[in-house]
């Protein structure tokens, strides 16, 4: 296991370095001068040239890359062109918000999704099953901006229960988390339902009943843990994507998160910020998959390696 973790970490480092190189080179070979973009309509050619030299973008790409990696090891990812602040500082602030949003959204999605999935499976073809599956279909198919705007209109604008936008307090995260989690809740509940229905046909469920477990005991102790195996994989993918930022939700609710930062970086050709956010997302996905694997082996003894 230890060896395994070490191997995984080395792999992760290699992937990160590869991604860094790829982004780095790609950003420098695509057409369009980032400095001209950054300086806007009113800048003249001489100024653009001067700024390009100032930022070291006229140096050969290998030299630039080495400097970037060396700086990155010291935690310095450069200064954003479009926001004028150190990338590390911007990402830290944005990640704080994204983390809160992602955790709340995931909690909402998973509690609701797993709960509804279980009820729908246990009461298959019942009222709740049809209701939940109908709603979850809506959850899966309704675009997030629509959910967000409806929530915003009903709960913030109309009922005044929660703020329209902003992150002054944790309350500001509730609507965005629901909007963001809505989709995931839909897919989680459908997956939980279908897996649970399969599991409930398994012989060991009969065994559990035969030894005197009542319905909730059978579910909670025997069915659920088995049913969660595929769900965990889905959840790991979801949390990775949630942590990589949710542009639409962040935009509608004016949350300064990783997603908006990344889009801002792309549209403004903000090289340092773009590199930073891309590396970050890569790291999050790697970490998410790693955690899913760990969790998987905790949940499923069959794939645990013999010590």
């Amino acid at each position, binding site marked *: 296991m230890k060896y395994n973790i070490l191997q995984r970490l080395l792999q992760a480092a290699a992937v990160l370095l590869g991604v860094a190189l790829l982004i780095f080179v790609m950003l420098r070979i695509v057409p369009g001068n980032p400095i001209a973009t950054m300086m806007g309509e009113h800048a003249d050619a001489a100024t653009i040239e001067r700024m390009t030299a100032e930022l070291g973008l006229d140096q050969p790409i290998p030299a630039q890359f080495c400097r970037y990696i060396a700086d990155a090891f010291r935690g310095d990812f450069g200064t954003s062109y479009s926001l004028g602040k150190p990338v590390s500082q911007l990402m830290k602030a944005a990640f704080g918000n994204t983390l809160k949003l992602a955790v709340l959204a995931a909690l909402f999605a998973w509690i609701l999704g797993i709960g509804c999935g279980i009820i729908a499976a246990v009461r*298959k073809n019942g009222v709740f099953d049809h209701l939940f599956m109908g709603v979850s279909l809506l959850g899966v198919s309704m675009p997030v901006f629509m959910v967000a705007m409806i929530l915003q209109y009903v709960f913030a604008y109309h009922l005044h229960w929660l703020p329209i936008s902003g992150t002054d307090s944790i309350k500001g995260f509730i609507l965005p988390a629901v909007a963001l989690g809505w989709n995931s809740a839909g897919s989680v509940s459908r997956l939980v339902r279908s897996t649970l229905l399969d599991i409930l*046909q*398994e*012989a*060991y469920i*009969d*065994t*559990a*009943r*035969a*030894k*005197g*477990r*009542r319905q909730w*005991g059978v579910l909670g*102790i*025997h069915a659920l*843990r*088995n049913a969660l195996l595929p769900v965990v994989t889905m959840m790991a993918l979801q949390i990775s994507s949630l942590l990589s930022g949710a542009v639409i939700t962040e935009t509608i609710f004016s949350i300064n998160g990783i997603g908006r930062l990344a889009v801002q970086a792309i549209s403004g050709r903000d090289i340092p910020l773009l590199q930073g956010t891309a590396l970050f997302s890569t790291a999050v996905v790697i970490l998410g998959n790693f955690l899913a694997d760990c969790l998987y082996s905790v*949940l*499923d*003894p*069959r794939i645990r390696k013999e010590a």
Partner: protein
Amino acid sequence: MGQNMLEVRHLCASFFTQKGEVKAVNDVSFEVPRGRIVGIVGESGCGKSMTVRSVMRLLKYPGKIVSGEVMLDGRDLMRLSGREMAAVRGAEVSMIFQDPMTSLNPVMKAGKQVSEAVRIHQHVSSEEAKRRTLEIFEAVGIPEPARRYDSYPHQLSGGLRQRVMIAMAMICRPKLLIADEPTTALDVTVEAQILRIMKNLCGTGTSVLIISHNLGVIAQICDYVYVMYAGRIVEQADTFTLFEHPMHPYTCGLLNAVASLRLGREKLDTIPGVVPNLLHLPEGCSFSLRCEKCSGICASKMPDLMKTGEGHMVRCHLSGKGGES
């Protein structure tokens, strides 16, 4: 207190499908005397599994018990609430299933699954439950019980898993053990061991109801046998009588098939035709379509179970007219 541990009277259970009601268990009555081993034999699909699952009230959707009484030690299980029935399962009646590979929860330690049965029904500490689990592991012949306790099912062989299942079923010392094809998935040597264990258990006061399509298994351990065909009991007798003097053409067919297999004849004696579709049973005797001795009355009237000897009953118009071949 009567002499029977289990008495099933006029049990009817059906699948309610979109095409209509499928009467999988049709007016079945049988009993398991105290301390005895009773077998139900029949081809797959004859309703024997459904019958014993009805006793446990563990039918799978869309199966449902329609009517009948299931008296366990004088108490009608059909009248119990869900909660009361759950308290009976595992404590008074327990059941082991056909495939030990899939009957154990893959993500739970074997020992835990057994001790769980104790803890559901009796207020004992986890240490006590574990102690008793190790004890019963020993009793069912699981080597190195302490190590096996912490094993996961996938780390155990088929035979060991079935022993774990038996341990689980027996740990609360139930009045009745139901075994649904307990050895079908196991190889022959393991089968013999498992049957021996079950026979021993019977000696400790538990009655056993075993179902099988394998007449060999039945012959080895049963005191009394019921033969089922298309949802009905077609013949019942003590084991010796059944094997020596089978009356029903179906029973005879089954025995011939086994005999031809054992004697290594070139051509296997089989029963012609297939099990009829339960949705479209013939008007008369269910077996009439496959019966070599079928006569006029067979096709028009369902025969009743008729007593042909001491403890021997047969559902055949021809009974007493030389069913023996």
